[in-house]
């Protein structure tokens, strides 16, 4: 059995090696390209969101490459996402593919996930299942930490491209760490790699908070790599959504990290008092939090037809008006034009720069 899981940011780096070492024949989908997107779009309902289309493209490409089993998170999802596995399975069956598909019924329930791992791997007892699962989570957290370093160092680097190389090297190191002890050691090395980058210490970059629907926000292929574009415009990114935070909210593996969903709900009070699906609570709460922390502006990312983020978008534009706080919403789907995205990003950065100059000259 060759197992594949659709891509989501760097998640595949966290699990592939570990599951392989435990007897699972893992085959992550080929890296998403235009071909992936075209395949996904051709076979998806038009108004399904971009994550659905990219997932489906990943699945088709994996099946073509020889995979015969798909694992897709599902269950009562945060939004329409909960149905996606079922619909994708149907579409793939109609296309004539033969495969086994499992959707995790309740992605929030730990024992469910451990059972799934026991099912597909050579691990036969629960404690080992926990040990492997938590190692994957810790690796994910390490990858996210490396990316956060990248966001900090990229706008300050003196030699162009040095930070990109540091990130590549860090990902390689983290990928090679297949035990808790090794991962612990590699974390120090990653920190050192980034600290060795030559940076302009006096330069104070603009800081933009990046919030929105989690898949499109963390997947560079889906958002035309806006984070890299902003980094090259010498803007520091303060990301509000992380895959490891999302996982930590459910499985509590980072003892000192607060539950981000609950934290956001506290901040969002008065603007959004009830969860409205997806990351809407995080988007609203963290917009208010970033405003208080003096982040210069918010870039809000969402897929076209995303209901939860549409709700959040309406609310954060209200916040923008109330607090005189710049917010730029960007919607992504397969039709998005890069020229348009770049022009709006540049204009937004200019806007923030001018505001900062005004603020400094007033004080």
């Amino acid at each position: 059995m060759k197992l594949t899981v659709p891509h989501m940011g760097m998640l595949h780096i966290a699990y592939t090696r570990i599951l392989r070492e435990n007897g699972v024949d893992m085959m992550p989908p080929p890296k998403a390209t235009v071909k992936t997107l075209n395949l996904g779009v051709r076979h998806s309902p038009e108004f399904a969101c971009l994550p659905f289309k990219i997932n489906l493209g990943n699945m088709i490409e994996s099946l073509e490459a020889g995979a015969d089993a798909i694992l897709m998170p599902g269950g009562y999802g945060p939004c329409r996402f909960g149905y996606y596995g079922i619909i994708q399975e149907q579409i793939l069956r109609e296309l004539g593919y033969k495969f086994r598909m499992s959707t995790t019924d309740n992605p929030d329930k730990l024992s469910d996930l451990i059972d799934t791992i026991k099912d597909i791997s050579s691990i036969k007892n629960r404690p080992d299942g926990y040990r492997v699962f938590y190692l994957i989570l810790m690796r994910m957290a390490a990858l996210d930490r490396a990316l956060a370093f990248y966001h900090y160092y990229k706008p300050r680097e003196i030699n162009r491209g040095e930070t990109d190389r540091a990130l590549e090297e860090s990902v390689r190191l983290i990928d090679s760490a297949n035990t808790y002890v090794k991962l612990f050691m590699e974390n120090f090395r990653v920190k050192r790699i980034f600290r060795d980058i030559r940076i302009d210490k006096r330069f104070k970059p603009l800081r933009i908070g990046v919030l929105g629907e989690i898949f499109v926000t963390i997947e560079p292929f889906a958002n035309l790599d806006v984070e890299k574009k902003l980094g090259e415009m010498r803007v520091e990114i303060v990301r509000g959504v992380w895959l490891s935070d999302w996982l930590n909210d459910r499985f509590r593996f980072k003892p000192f990290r607060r539950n981000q969903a609950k934290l956001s709900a506290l901040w969002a009070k008065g603007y959004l008092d009830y969860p409205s699906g997806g990351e809407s609570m995080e988007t609203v709460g963290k917009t208010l939090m970033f405003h208080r922390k003096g982040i210069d502006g918010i870039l809000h990312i969402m897929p076209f037809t995303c209901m939860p983020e549409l709700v959040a978008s309406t609310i954060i534009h209200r916040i923008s008006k109330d607090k005189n706080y710049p917010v730029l919403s960007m919607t992504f789907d397969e039709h998005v034009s890069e020229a348009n995205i770049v022009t709006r990003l540049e204009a937004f950065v200019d806007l923030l720069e001018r505001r900062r100059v005004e603020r400094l000259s007033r004080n």
Partner: protein
Amino acid sequence: MTSLKGEELKGYLGIDVGSVTTKVVLIDYDGSVLWNSYRRTMGQPIRALQSAFSSLKKDLGGVDIRGVGATGSGRKLADHIAGADRVKNEITAHAVSAIHLLPNVRTIVEIGGQDSKLILIRNGVVTDFSMNTVCAAGTGSFLEHQAARLGISIGELGSYALRSASPARIAGRCTVFAESDMIHKQQMGHNLEDIVAGLCDALARNYLNNLARGKDLSSPIIFQGGVAANPGIKAAFEREINKEFIIPGHYPIMGAIGAALLVRDTKDTRFKGLSVSEQRLYTSSFYCSDCPNTCGVIEINDSEKVIARWGDSCGKWANMEE
């Protein structure tokens, strides 16, 4: 325009390579326009730029160009060809020129060939903007297409609209539906003037629905971009929101003026000189087959040498040294 042939003229050049037209202006330090050129890109931005440069040389003789700013959707191309000191997006460029002209401006409505923008300004600073993202309904290309279908020139569109007493109501949500609705109205027997006026109304409504939703359009409002040439659109906007729209004298070249204003503090310009117009520049493109992305890579060549490459998402062609 005053001819200053013979004297050495100093100025700053602004280049705005748009989707439909290419604008080049020469301004002095105070921002007054010394020379300008407005011509159709005709799908050949390099040719358009070169011919603008050669007519600049013909009109003014020797000019000391102290700085060059590039904007518009073809700003990167303009930079590679002419060598620009600053490459700025259209939104900032338009805001800079409008603020220069009218320091207390609060709203800028800009409608060009293929995109439209709304820029809000408070105390001389851009505070918000929006730009059409998915639909070209309500831009110059749409108007031009419809004018051609009705058999009148784009320049006459405005005067037709102003002669109408009761504009026909045309569905403006989408260009395709607008067109079929127009045909329907023609067949019902509405006269040409009413249909043209209805078209202007539809465009104004479409703009306000798409870009201005929930935004506070307060006076003074400046209306610029090529479509401002059409008094029918101005009238439609004023009817729709009951506020005066100010059209600056240089409405079609405001973006280029903004780009030029931004380079007034340049020390040593990167400008390659007006002789660029005599170079044998041509572009070629190929599809990179190294990964399934199959990016279309574009090259600009000067005779046999490649000057610049772009279009690849991984950057390996763009960063290649020749």
